[in-house]
């Protein structure tokens, strides 16, 4: 396959960025999207051009490091996968592919396709936990959790923190991310003692980081590589309302 790549290049967070155009030949349909970028970088290095910086690590869709906009969609054209799981067989010979970093005010670009997602960590630090001091736990089977509830909690807990929901949202809202964590813990009995403080603190931190509000467009759910459902946002709103009136 022969491709034309239009890739966002930006030296650092202070510089202005722009698209650069690169031609790439002999791309195999069995390559992953990131392997295609590897090949491009090898070519750039041989031409003494700085390789494209992009975040990636596990390359099996679970660490949440990779995250780029591909042809205007977070993680590219296919649903329910990350950019590292996208394979070039999803493109056609002769295609032009536009590659950009996440665009959201709370996620400044650090270089090329690399952004700063530390606001998500700070939201977690404000309340995304169950306080269980090491060594204090009762026997694991002491608290029974019915199968369906455990499955529902697992659905929410599957979030990989990649930030695609924020990037896909026209308001740069982090509601899907926050709601996934709030739901995961609110569904489980272990999470109940701290549920009110948790939801209030996490939402306060989310607002402080400059994320926008949710207007229920559903873009986040459509682009989430783990197909986290927006019903979690409804649950977050209920949790928040209940906690606010207490």
């Amino acid at each position: 396959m022969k491709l034309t790549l239009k890739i966002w290049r930006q030296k650092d967070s202070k510089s202005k960025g722009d698209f650069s155009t690169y031609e790439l030949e002999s791309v195999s349909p069995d390559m992953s999207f990131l392997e295609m970028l590897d090949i491009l970088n090898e070519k750039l290095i041989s031409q003494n051009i700085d390789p494209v910086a992009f975040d990636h690590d596990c390359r099996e869709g679970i660490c949440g490091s990779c995250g780029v906009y591909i042809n205007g969609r977070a993680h590219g054209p296919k649903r329910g996968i990350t950019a590292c799981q996208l394979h070039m067989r999803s493109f056609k010979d002769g295609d032009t592919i536009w590659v950009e970093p996440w665009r959201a005010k709370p996620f400044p670009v650090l270089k090329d396709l690399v952004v700063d997602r530390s606001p998500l960590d700070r939201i977690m630090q404000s309340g995304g936990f169950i306080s269980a001091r090491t060594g204090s736990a009762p026997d694991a089977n002491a608290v029974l959790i019915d199968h369906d509830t455990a499955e529902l909690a697992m659905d929410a807990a599957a979030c990989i923190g990649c930030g695609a929901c924020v990037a896909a949202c026209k308001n740069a809202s982090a509601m899907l991310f926050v709601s996934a964590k709030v739901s995961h813990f609110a569904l489980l009995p272990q999470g109940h003692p701290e549920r009110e403080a948790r939801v209030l603190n996490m939402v306060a931190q989310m607002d402080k980081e400059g994320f926008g509000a949710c207007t229920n467009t559903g873009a986040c759910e459509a682009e989430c590589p783990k197909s986290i459902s927006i019903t979690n946002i409804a649950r977050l709103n209920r949790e928040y309302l209940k906690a606010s009136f207490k």
Partner: protein
Amino acid sequence: MKLDSKIPEGHISEKWYKHRFQLKLVNPANKRKYSVIIVGTGLAGGSAAATLAELGYNVMAFCYQDSARRAHSIAAQGGINAAKNYQNDGDSIYRLFYDTVKGGDYRAREANVHRLAELSVNIIDQCVAQGVPFAREYSGYLDNRSFGGAQVSRTFYARGQTGQQLLLGAYSALSKQIGLGNVKMFPRHEMLELVVVNGRARGIIARDMVTGEIKRYAADAVLLATGGYGNVYYLSTNAKGSNTTAIWRAYKKGAVFGNPCFVQIHPTCIPVSGDHQSKLTLMSESLRNDGRVWVPKSPDDSRKPSEIPEEDRDYFLERKYPSFGNLVPRDVASRNAKQVCDDGKGVGSSKLAVYLDFRDAIKRLGKPKIEEKYGNLFDMYEQITAENPYNVPMRIFPAVHYTMGGLWVDYNLMSNIPGLFVLGEANFSDHGANRLGASALMQGLADGYFVIPYTLGGYLAEGGLDKISTEHEEFGNAEAQTRERINKLLSIKGTKSVDHYHKALGKVMWDNVGMSRNAKGLDEAIKQIKEIRYEFWQNVKVLGENEEINQSLEKAGRVADFLELGELVARDALQRNESCGGHFREEYQTEENEARRDDENFSYVGAWEYKGDDQEPEMHKENLAFEYVKPSQRSYK
């Protein structure tokens, strides 16, 4: 050098209990006077950081990823073992201990393994309390599945994402401590040097991977929890960033390296598809609960798998190992897959794959049940290969997955450098020559949640630690070393990329130091690695500068270390004139092609000491004593 393992006296089941009492304590008000550096935030490092901060220590935690949540523990799929015996199927702490010592082919320390088995039950309790959504039965009780090398069901799991959920549990606990100000977190920071002052580990030099700033960090103890070194093979199931730099820098500062040649090659990975391949993807061992491994009986059978009738299939694991069947340990499964491929019976275009077939399981349990158990793995497989495993059997082949070797530690997880502790996959300790499935998560969390909080306290309470400042000349020396190395890498301005050399190293390692090894090949590997290393330092091309995000520079530093470590792995494999676990020497096999262990001469840990760049390292031995599990030929027949 005398390696003192510090194994406590007494009966095996009482050692840890007694030892905990004998360790000195740091009183609660004094803990805040101590500071600890933890490098790596996976299961071992993350759980240690959270737990030590809870206790009151001042913790500084470092990781190279942009968030602590992305450490590669996250990719562990199948599950975590614990001797809960919830299934009433005959499990016990002693049986988990026995299985692990046997599974490791009698090359692990009994005392460490027993402690691991004891702590396994606490880990599950702790994780459930943190909100880890383990799979449940309809009754609400926890569910279990089986893993290789065991005849009981003791593996707890959260779909195919157990590592993710356990790591997020530790990350949540860590996040709480960061929020409280008890942990100072340094993401996108890479440790590039260990600082040793008066013989004790007192700090590190780290590079800020965004600005390029190189800074000094001082503490009372340094904990390395930086994972394994599988990427020395270039292609492995490790994350692209997984590296050996932290433990290799410590090795070069005097920490001895235990059993570097013990590398686990995992039997069920998706085969290589071409030269562009950048990493390999594991398909969880749990699939062998229901999938059957086979190849065509005849080497030139070119029919589609669905057209090959039962009588023309060779279910070689079930045939050779009737009592464990498809659930033999990983080393056995991998070696047998290689053998059938060597015999020309491999499948797929490369002929380097065997089938993992779910046809019978789907018939027996129905597609929905299989989907519930393995849905995400099947999806992942289809994503990568464009084949639907519900309809056609998976094609799998072994790949480098885990390194049992690592820095040598005593019973307290302390290396031979006082104050330097090593946790999780980064140490050599608990798995001997082969790790059983679902035991890595167990070890990482045991080390971090339940071992280090006691043993670190014991070290600190012994006293003798002076106040330390980053102005000390050893910090200056270490920083100068780091800067010099970076400047060197940037100034070579050669003609070949870093990846070029990494791939060249990987090929030598896989061909000569891989699943099956022999003296001639190992000698050759040592020679070739030296040549590649020499050329690397003459001709590598690293563009850009230090004061920016420079991913080529990051890679160059890591590959430079792999180029040294690779040689040590080969050297260790060459001295070990026996076959055991993941280390298979062609010269030492039984008539049935099984590993022939030599307990008389090789029942020891080979611990290597660095002697200088132009000198050969020296090997020290820690002899292993087996008082409880008597070594026998491992049989899974």
